[in-house]
């Protein structure tokens, strides 16, 4: 009997120790730092497969080649559509400056035969008919401390309760206006420092969008989302994105992100 009590006591202690450890490991700031410090490729490329489904189940597919760099001065993304036929050769470039507001967006439409400079979109604007916002692309599954106040999760909102959870509340109304999000709740895979299930809420606090990462892969030593789904609760529209041939690029020249180059088509790397 004594022995049983001892075992129970040890188990109990272990349980307390474990809970304490889990709690420390999962404190909001610790989780936020873990994600923010996640190693990212400076430059990478991959083929993107989009599957867009509306609430009636009608599907549209798109294929594009993506180039992405994340450097000290700016985040640059170039996307060259290769299918379907009406989007073929359409190319989009965005340069998001990190230290000032000199953001740039460029679009090449083969029908106009001209590379056109566009007014920069709000971070909350949706990209080319998908459920991905320009802000989502720029943030790359990270949560900027300048945008969010990190908190403990509201347990009722946790979609994946077996995983540590991070909640962010927009720091200001300006951030809500820019991003379209007032709050998020994210389930974190601490092994990869990736938020693999994120629920976003709109300015009125209503559920807006659900992001689910279904496949991660190490590309050049950095964990990258290879397959993920974005479901808009309000429109019923879903976007599934799958990357193929994803690879890290060493010494990728900024020339790849020159606006004039969009007209030439996919750069040879």
């Amino acid at each position, binding site marked *: 009997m004594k022995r049983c009590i001892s075992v129970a006591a040890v188990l109990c202690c272990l349980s307390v120790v474990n809970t304490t450890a889990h709690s420390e490991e999962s404190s909001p700031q610790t989780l936020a730092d873990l994600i923010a410090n996640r190693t990212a490729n400076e430059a990478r490329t991959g083929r993107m497969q989009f599957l*867009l489904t*509306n609430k009636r189940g*009608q*599907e*549209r*597919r798109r294929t594009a080649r993506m180039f992405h760099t994340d450097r000290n001065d700016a985040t640059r993304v170039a996307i060259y559509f*290769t299918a*379907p*036929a*009406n989007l*073929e050769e359409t190319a989009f470039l965005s340069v998001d400056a990190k230290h000032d*507001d*000199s*953001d*740039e967006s460029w679009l090449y439409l083969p*029908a*106009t*035969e*001209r590379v056109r*400079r*566009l*007014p*920069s*979109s*709000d971070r909350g*604007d*949706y990209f*080319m*008919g*998908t*459920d991905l916002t320009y802000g989502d692309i720029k943030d790359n599954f990270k949560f900027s401390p300048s945008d969010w106040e990190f908190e403990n999760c509201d347990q009722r909102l946790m979609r994946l309760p077996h995983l540590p959870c991070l909640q962010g509340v927009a720091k200001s109304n300006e951030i809500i206006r820019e991003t379209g999000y007032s709050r998020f709740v994210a389930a974190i895979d601490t092994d990869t420092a990736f938020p693999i299930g994120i629920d976003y809420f709109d300015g009125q606090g209503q559920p807006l969008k659900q992001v689910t990462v279904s496949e991660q892969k190490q590309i050049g030593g950095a964990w990258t989302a290879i397959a993920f789904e974005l479901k808009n609760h309000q*429109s019923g*529209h879903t976007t599934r994105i799958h990357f193929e041939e994803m690879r890290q690029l060493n010494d990728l020249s900024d*020339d790849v992100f020159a606006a*004039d180059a969009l007209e*030439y088509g996919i750069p*040879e790397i």
Partner: protein
Amino acid sequence: MSQLLRLLAVCSMTLPAGHAASSVSSELQFWSAHTVRNNDQVIKRFSIESRLKQKLSRRWQVQGTLALEHAHDDVGLGTVDTYDRQAKPLVSGGDTRLELRQLVLRYRKGKTSFSLGRQTFAWGVIDGYRVTDRLDPVRRRDFVFTEQKPERIPRWSARLRTTLEGYRVDLALIADSTVSQLPKQDSALLPTASRFTGGLPFSPAFEPSIELQTGRQSLTGAIKVSRRLRSGMDAAVLAFRGPDTEPVLAHRSGRVLLTFPKRTLLGGYLQQSLGDQVVRAEVAYLPDQRVNTGGGLGQERVRRWIAGVGADRWLAGKWFVLGQMTYDRIFSTNNRAVRPKEDVLATLRLQRRFLNDRGELKFESVNDLRKGDGYFASSLKWSFRQNIDLLAGGEWIYGADSGIFGQFEQQSRVWLKARIRI
């Protein structure tokens, strides 16, 4: 030689799509338009356009577009007399036409690209109204009532683009005397305003011949140098000299001719992002522009300035708005030019996409502020399936008969288009 090139082009269009580095796509379009005033079906046009892109090696690729069109209506497909002999449609009979729209062999290495073939040069930053964007001839069979403005006509040419010390250099040599395509004589969109008839009163019997430049006179040389300035502003200067793509009328040996004398254009533009908007300014100077003067199809060489400013931005509700003003002025010594001394055009365009880009709504208003004529256009596009678009729209044209747009007042219309991509 031209027959050989055409044959090669047609053969290239039939290359198998299964090749790893090739892409072939086709688009079928049906367009029907009825005038608002008397419900005449003025446009009944069917077209198939096939595009091929073939990678020949890491650095070389060939790209071509072949278009088959059939029209049985009051507008028609436009004249082919304005095409250079080497650039005429492969088949052009009655209501049907098979045309090689584009055929370009391109080499690219790093920052340098060289292309040879039938191609276009979309220079300038102002939309719709051509300030410096005057290298390409354009289709005028639908005047300006088209989705894309302008509808460019490619010409046989060589082009070199490279970067030198941060300056982007674009050089072109065009060896093709094709000029802007005109509507046929019996077209509902044949210009009748006196500024387009050399000052002569319009009559259905008025049928000038077209006199294209030949030999060395048909060559056009062009250069554009552009650079990103430290402030983030894009700046460019450009110059070209060659036959005008727009006609000036002449009277010779008892015949009325549309002639295309050489002219020079010097110009430049600036483009800058300012917060959530992009602003643009563009200017062109033509020191030797020929214009018609009143009385017996006289001609005068005048100085011409064209300038344009514009801005576009996102508005609340995800509306995209473009506002633009262009000013086109000639400096005539005897003040007898048939065209007005000044044209001032204002453009306002609003467009919005909705339901994840399945639908697009567009409104456009273009006004000649001097004459008070113009048009208002609207359209709705709906992507019915992945590869099918349905479009509906219309143009309401207003103003006096002598105006750029007012001359087509009777042609206000509504239309439907269906587009299928394969």
